[in-house]
């Protein structure tokens, strides 16, 4: 099974390492044609504005919407969570608009307010070390399930084949969330 990591900008290598640790093959996706060879994709952390510019320029918007419409799983972390959301608070901007959520950017403050903390993630882990870097959060999940909250803010959610975390599971060596995503991909393959 092959899982892609959108490789336009951001923490690509870390996600690829975690996919391999979770027992699947990882592919760095730079061109839309490569989407045909993978069964699921991770949209990594990075700068959402920069990734979005490059997605637009290289035809990834329509290609990823099509990918998701075929019920192939998509996992967005941090910037990825923003990119797959249907609504971004305070703007009219929608990037991919896949997941029925409303999100807030840079919601925990600037870099010096960035932090790490142990989180309980429903059905995945009771003590996951979650690293938040200039992180967003989900203000509302209109459809789907909340998987984790921090100080009453939603920081992980799933809706069917879509998964999102506000934190960076690729920055620790704990593969539990990536294993969960690999299982999701298996589920939707059959």
């Amino acid at each position: 099974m092959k899982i892609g990591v959108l490789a336009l900008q951001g923490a690509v290598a870390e996600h690829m390492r975690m996919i391999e640790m979770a027992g699947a093959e990882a592919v760095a996706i730079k061109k839309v044609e490569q989407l045909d060879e993978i069964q699921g994709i991770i949209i990594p952390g990075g700068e959402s504005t920069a990734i979005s510019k490059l997605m637009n320029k290289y035809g990834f918007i329509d290609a990823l919407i099509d990918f998701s419409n075929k019920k192939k799983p998509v996992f967005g972390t941090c910037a990825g969570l923003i990119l797959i959301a249907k609504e971004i608070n305070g703007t009219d901007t929608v990037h991919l608009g896949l997941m029925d959520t409303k999100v807030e950017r840079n919601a925990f403050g600037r870099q010096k307010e960035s932090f790490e903390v142990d989180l309980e993630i429903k059905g995945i882990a009771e003590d996951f070390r979650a690293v938040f870097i200039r992180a967003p959060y989900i203000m509302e999940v209109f459809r789907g399930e909340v998987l984790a909250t921090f100080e009453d803010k939603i920081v992980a959610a799933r809706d069917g084949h879509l998964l999102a975390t506000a934190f960076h599971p690729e920055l620790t060596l704990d593969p539990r969330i990536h294993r969960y995503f690999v299982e999701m991909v298996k589920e939707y393959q059959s």
Partner: protein
Amino acid sequence: MVEQGTTRVKRGMAEMQKGGVIMDVVNAEQAKIAEAAGAVAVMALERVPADIRAAGGVARMADPTIVEEVMKAVSIPVMAKARIGHFVEARILEAMGVDYIDESEVLTPADEVYHINKQEFTVPFVNGARDLGEALRRIGEGSSMLRTKGEPGTGNVVEAVRHMRTMMSQMRKVQGMSKDELMNEAKVLGAPYELLLYVHEHGKLPVVNFAAGGISTPADAALMMQLGADGVFVGSGIFKSENPEKFAKAIVEATTHYTDYVLMAELSKGLGNPMKGIEISTLTENEKMAKRGW
């Protein structure tokens, strides 16, 4: 327990910048151009390095008004420069909420022996390095991100190439060494042993390493990426070029698709003139910024 300013949080921030371009800007208008072009961060300055060179005199931390103006103008991270060893300038920038501090040789050093003890800060730091020993000393002091020094404000990529090639070659050498040889190598390089051991075991630095200092065209950016850079800083190269918007966009795309030569040929068409540039051999020893830092 919530922990801030951990090594993981500070280094992680730099990981998110990988594959991206960080651009020098001197006001809100330039910051917006940089953000619109797809920059992953901006460096807020009073003058770009080429103008610092031209102006001469002592170059210090930028006026906080400029840094604040830039922070208000964009949603991407904002970096700012403090003088080497000037921990008070760094504390001021930290208090202002700057996302990353560059302890930079572009400014006039405030201390000719000691760099800032960066371990003690919550805000992460980026530092310049010419070789592996310098890189590991900076990481030892708590730097969370590195960049080649290159020769800032020259528009000439030759020094950045030299520094990146030197570092990569030294890392390959260390990786191939027997463990018996590592302590002596640490002595020769002036590098902390534990960090050298990390390089020996992993074949890479424990932090992100960008290219900086003289990058002024899309091809320069792609060259540095192919030599092993994780991303690029472009200082004077964008806003000293004839067409900053076009240059900024083209450099961003070339940094992502750094092996796609057909694309880069397209990107490089009709960009107008890049910044004029300076041949390194015409600089006196005192004019070389890369020599600052120890």
